[in-house]
């Protein structure tokens, strides 16, 4: 369904109005069609569905009462990362909402070693099981991080 800025200052002639929305059709928000396609391609239907849930149904206080809503900055950084990231053949990463409103992405590299990245409102923190590496980067480095971890 499109989410528009709200205004009721005009309405369309009947012939141009939307029909009753179909529950079978999901209409991405304006400018988000490419993003939705990206989620489907790289995370599969399950990952796409989880992100939809996190964005829309996890308000402040979710979980044990301390969970924060998904950070819009974390979400935007996550999208920038996904645009460049590649994953081993047949691998669909898992995605989680963290207590602080970040998005955590987990998968195994070609050697079966864990790779975890948490996107937050401040940047991205990552962990590579291979070499026991932990570090963090700013939002400006999402493309470089994706290239680095795709090769890990």
């Amino acid at each position, binding site marked *: 369904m499109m989410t528009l800025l709200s*205004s009721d200052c005009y*309405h369309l002639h009947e012939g141009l109005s939307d029909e009753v929305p179909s529950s079978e059709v999901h209409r991405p928000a304006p400018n988000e069609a490419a993003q939705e396609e990206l989620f489907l391609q790289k995370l599969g239907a399950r990952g796409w569905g989880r992100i939809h849930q996190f964005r829309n149904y996890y308000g402040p206080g979710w979980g044990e009462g301390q969970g924060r809503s998904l950070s819009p900055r974390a979400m935007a950084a996550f999208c920038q990362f996904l645009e460049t990231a590649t994953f081993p053949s047949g691998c669909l990463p898992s995605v989680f909402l963290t207590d602080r409103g970040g998005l955590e992405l987990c998968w195994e590299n070609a050697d079966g070693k864990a790779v975890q990245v948490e996107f937050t409102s401040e940047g991205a923190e990552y962990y590579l099981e291979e070499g026991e590496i932990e570090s963090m980067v700013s939002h400006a480095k999402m493309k470089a991080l994706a290239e680095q971890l795709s090769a890990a």
Partner: protein
Amino acid sequence: MSDPFPIPVPARLPDSISPCPIVEAIFELRFTTTETWATLPGLLYALIRDKYRDQRRLPLDHVPEELRKDSAFTHMPLLQFLSPDFLIQLGPRVISLVTKSNAYPGWPRIKQELEWLLGEIKKAGFLDEGERLGIRYIDFFAEDIFPNLLLNVHLCGQPLKGSECQVATVLRRPPLAMRLIASNGAVVKVDGVPKSGSILDVDAWFGALDFDVFENGVKRFDDAHLAVKQLFFGLLREEYLATLNPQYP
């Protein structure tokens, strides 16, 4: 894919045209907060009540909270605060400044009100993170607008003329995204009287990583306003613009 922003930007932009076609302009901020909806209106109202005395509950506020969780409602306002010149709309994740219908006060006055409002939002302390900063201008024209636009719709190789028509597209001028709707089948109330004609509905916004509400929020509104103005005047055919009595600085 073709040019993401194919509209030519005019060398000179009018300050105004008359009659002014702007029906409504909305300046919107989407955000996250740790405050519940039960506390949010009070936090804001305490700071704006000298200017915005009256309140109006919108129909969605009567819908149970569980049903409002549907993504279609996430960024919809539930409450309006009214002043003689503007109204402020507030929802659990959105706040917007809206001009009075058919009474566009001009950009300098709007910018002044936005500066004041962002200051009050900062004082209220409920805003956790900005998600989207956008502006939307809705213009009404009594005639079919399509022949007057640099926008052609063809069907089977023939120009589509005289039919009810609506075109919606998303254009990109990074970091701005802009959604344009043009329709020749709209009804708008002008001075309380419904009139049928055409609308141009332009929405331009910055994403979460491209603005900081309290650092450069007003500047970003300024940027978006200029981009919408350029799109609007870039889209009109020169000969049509000349009939609108443009006033240049």
